[in-house]
C-alpha cells in the first residue's frame, strides 16, 4: 500500500485511542474530585489528569491553575492542546478522509458520524450530565471503531498498521498513568494509610478501565505491587504493557511475513517484548518502578520512529 496511507492509518488509530484514553482520564479525575481525599504534595486530581497526557508544561503556558473548568476545557475541547479530544477527533477524521479507500464503510461511518455528533459540543460550561454524555460518546466511537475494524477489515497490511497505532498508543498511555503514581505503588514507601492510598490506586485502575478486572484476576483487595504487576506484566490484561507488546510484535511479524522482509522495527519490538516477559515483580521494584517506566516510554517512542522509518516514509 501507499506509504502515505499506512501513515494515515497508523495515526488514525493512535488518535482514536488517545481520544478514548483522554476521556477515561477525565472521568477518573471527575470521580476522584468527588471523594474527600486530596493528593499529597498539593497536586490535585485535575493536574494529575493533565500530567497523564504528558503535556503539563503546555497546560501551564495556558492556564495558571488546574481546576475542573480549565482542565476539562484543555483536555476535551481546546484547540491549543494538540491532544485534546476535539483535536484528536479532528485529526482522526482528516486522516480517515485521506485514507478512505483503506477503510471499510462501517469504520468510516463510525468516525464521520462520531465526529459530526460531537463537534457541536464545545462549551466549558457543560453540565455534569452533558459532559458525561460527551465522554460516553467518545468512548463509544473508539469502541465502535475498534470493533468495526476487527469485524470488517481484511487482514492485510492496512489492518496491521492500524493495530500498530492502537497498541503503541495504548502502551504509552498505560505507562504514563503508572509513572504518574509510581511513588504510591512503591511497596517500600511508608504508607500514608487509610483510604487515601486506596483512592490513588483505584484512580490508576479506573483510568485504564481495569478496576473490575483487577478483582477478577486477584480476588483480593487493591495492593500496590499487584496493581503494578497487573498493568505491566499480566498478559491477560489487554491494557498491560506486556499485552500491548504481544500485539505490537504480532502485527509487525504479520507485516514482515506478508512483505517477506524483516527490519529494525521487528527486532526492536521482539527485544522489548522479551524484556517485559523476563521481568519479575521483585526485579521491577529493584530497578525502581519510575525508572523502569520512563525507560519504557522512551523505548516505545523509539519503536514508533523505527516503524515510521521502515514503512511510512
Amino acid at each position, binding site marked *: 500500500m*501507499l*506509504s502515505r496511507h499506512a501513515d494515515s492509518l497508523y495515526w488514525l488509530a493512535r488518535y482514536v485511542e488517545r481520544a478514548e484514553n483522554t476521556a477515561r482520564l477525565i472521568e477518573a479525575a471527575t470521580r476522584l474530585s468527588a471523594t474527600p481525599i486530596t493528593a499529597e504534595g498539593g497536586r490535585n486530581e485535575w493536574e494529575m489528569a493533565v500530567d497523564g497526557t504528558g503535556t503539563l508544561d503546555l497546560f501551564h503556558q495556558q492556564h495558571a491553575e488546574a481546576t475542573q473548568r480549565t482542565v476539562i476545557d484543555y483536555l476535551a475541547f481546546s484547540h491549543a492542546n494538540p491532544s485534546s479530544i476535539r483535536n484528536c477527533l479532528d485529526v482522526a477524521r482528516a486522516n480517515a*478522509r*485521506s485514507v478512505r*479507500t483503506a477503510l471499510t464503510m462501517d469504520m468510516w461511518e463510525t468516525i464521520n458520524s462520531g465526529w*459530526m455528533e460531537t463537534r457541536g459540543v464545545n462549551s466549558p460550561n457543560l453540565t455534569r450530565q452533558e459532559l458525561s454524555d460527551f465522554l460516553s460518546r467518545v468512548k463509544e466511537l473508539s469502541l465502535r471503531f475498534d470493533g468495526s475494524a476487527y469485524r470488517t477489515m481484511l487482514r492485510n497490511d492496512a489492518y496491521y498498521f492500524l493495530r500498530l497505532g492502537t497498541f503503541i498508543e495504548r502502551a504509552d498511555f498505560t505507562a504514563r498513568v503508572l509513572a504518574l503514581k509510581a511513588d504510591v505503588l512503591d511497596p517500600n514507601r511508608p504508607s500514608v494509610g487509610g483510604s487515601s492510598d486506596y483512592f490513588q490506586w483505584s484512580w490508576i485502575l479506573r483510568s485504564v478501565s481495569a478496576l473490575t478486572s483487577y478483582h477478577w484476576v486477584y480476588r483480593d483487595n487493591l495492593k500496590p505491587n499487584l496493581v503494578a504487576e497487573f498493568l505491566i506484566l499480566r498478559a491477560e490484561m489487554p491494557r498491560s504493557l506486556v499485552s500491548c507488546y504481544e500485539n505490537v510484535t504480532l502485527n509487525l511479524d504479520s507485516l514482515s511475513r506478508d512483505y517477506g522482509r524483516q527490519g529494525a522495527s521487528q527486532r526492536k519490538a521482539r527485544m522489548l517484548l522479551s524484556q517485559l516477559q523476563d521481568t519479575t515483580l521483585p526485579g521491577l521494584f529493584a530497578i525502581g518502578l519510575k525508572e523502569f517506566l520512563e525507560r519504557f516510554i522512551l523505548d516505545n517512542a523509539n519503536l514508533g520512529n523505527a516503524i515510521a522509518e521502515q514503512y511510512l516514509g
Partner: protein
Amino acid sequence: MPAFDEMHGFGQGVRSAYRTIQAWLDSSDPENLKRLQKEAEFLFRRIGITFAVYGDAEAEERIIPFDIVPRVLTGSEWATLSKGLTQRVTALNRFLADVYGAGEIIRAGIVPADLVYQNPAFRPEMVGLKLPHDVYVQIAGIDIIRTDDKDFYVLEDNARTPSGVSYMLENRDVQMRLFPDLFAETRIQPVENYPDELLASLRSLAPASAPAEPTVVLMTPGPLNSAYYEHSFLADKLGVELVEGRDLFVLDEVVYMRTTRGPKRVDVIYRRIDDDFLDPMVFRPDSVLGIPGLISAYRAGNVTLANAVGTGVADDKAIYTYMPEIVRFYLGEEPILKNVPTWRCREPDCLRYVLDHLPELVVKEVQGSGGYGMLVGPKSTKEQIEAFRAKLIADPDGFIAQPTLALSTSPTFVGDGVAPRHIDLRPFVLTGADKVRIVPGGLTRVALKEGSLVVNSSQGGGTKDTWIIADPADGAPPPDGQSQSQSQAGG
C-alpha cells in the same frame, strides 16, 4: 410557452415512462415524502458525500441536495441517446488524434486553424505523440438537454476531467434504500457495474511496455479539492490506490509510487487533476500537486493518462459549434444528437446579432465551466446585461451565445409538495481499446429554484436518480443486464 415536462409533456396527460412515478406520488402521503427527503439528506451527510464550494470557507463541506423523485427515460429513448453519445465521443477522439497529428480537418478548411492552435487548452507537447489505440478521451461526460419529446441536444461536451459519476451511483443506492417498493414494481437498468466498466476501459489502454496485469491508480489533488469525495469513492470501487502527486515519482522515464514495500511501477493514471498541475517541469512550475518528469514518462510511452493531456481543445465552447461538421467529417454520418444553435461572437455578423438580442440570449465564456461567467439574458437586470455587454465587446473571441432554451422539467419534491423544475442529464461515456461503454443512466441535475435554468451544484442545483426502464407499451420484459438491444429511433 411552458417548458416540456418529462412527466406531462405539454399537458396532454401522463407520459408512459412516468406512470409508475405518477401512481407512486398519488398514493404517497406528502408528510411521509418530506420525512424521507430528510432521511435522504441525513444518509448523504453520514456517508460523507460532500463537495466543497470554492471561496466559501463557512461551508467547507456541503452536500448536493438529492431529490427523491427519479427522472425516467424509456428504453427506446435511451437507445437513441446511447447511439448518439457513442457517435459523438468517437468523433471527439478522432478529432483529437487529428489535431495532434496530421491536422486534416484544418487543411480541409472545416475548423479554423487559430481556434485549435491558438487555443489555451492546445498542448504542443502532445503533437506527434502516438497514444494507445488513439484514445484521448477515455471518460467523457456529455451534458444533454431536451425541449420536447423528439430531440436530444448536447449542451456541452466535457472531455477533461468530468465529475459527478459518484452521484449517479450513490443516488441509486439511496433511492433503493429509501424506496425499495418502487424498485420491486419497476425493472430499472442497473448502473452499479460502472466501476467495472471503467476499470476494463482503463486497463485496455495500458502502455505496451506495461506488464500483463497493469497497475492503475487514481490521482487526486487532495482532500481540499471540491470533488475529493468522488475521487476516494471511485478509487475504492475500482480497487485502486488513491494517490496524490507526492506519492509518485519518475525514474528513467517510468512512474513509480511509494509503497510500504518500496517503489511500485504505475502504468495507468486516471487523473482528476487539470493539465496545468500535472508536471511542474512542463506546465505550471509553481504546482506542488504534480509529479516532476511525468510528461517525459508519458512521451516515452511508459504511462497512460486518462484523460490524455490536451483534450480541452475538443470540449471548448468555440469548438463545440463545429461538432456537427466534425461528426460528418470523420464518420460520414449525420449527427444523432443535435447541437444547440450557437452564435460565434468571434464572427462580426454573429456578434452584431448577439449584441442586439442580449436580453433573450444565454452568453457563455468559451473557456468557462461550472455555470460561472455566464449571462442568462431573460433572468438578468438591465445593469447586469450592460456590464456583460462591455465584457463581450472587449473580447468577442471569448464568448458564444445561444437562445434561452426551455429545458425540460421533471416533477421535483420542493418544500411541501411536488412541482416541475428544469433538468439536464450527464451520461458518462467510456472509451476503451475494444469499444465504447455507457452504463444506462447518468447524472440528472435539477435547478431547484423555481424557474431557474442553472443546474450546477455550485449554483443551487440538486440531483436525481435516473431510471432507464423498458418501454411500457409493449409489455415485453426489459433487456438483460447492460445490453442495449432496442434500436428503434425516436421516443
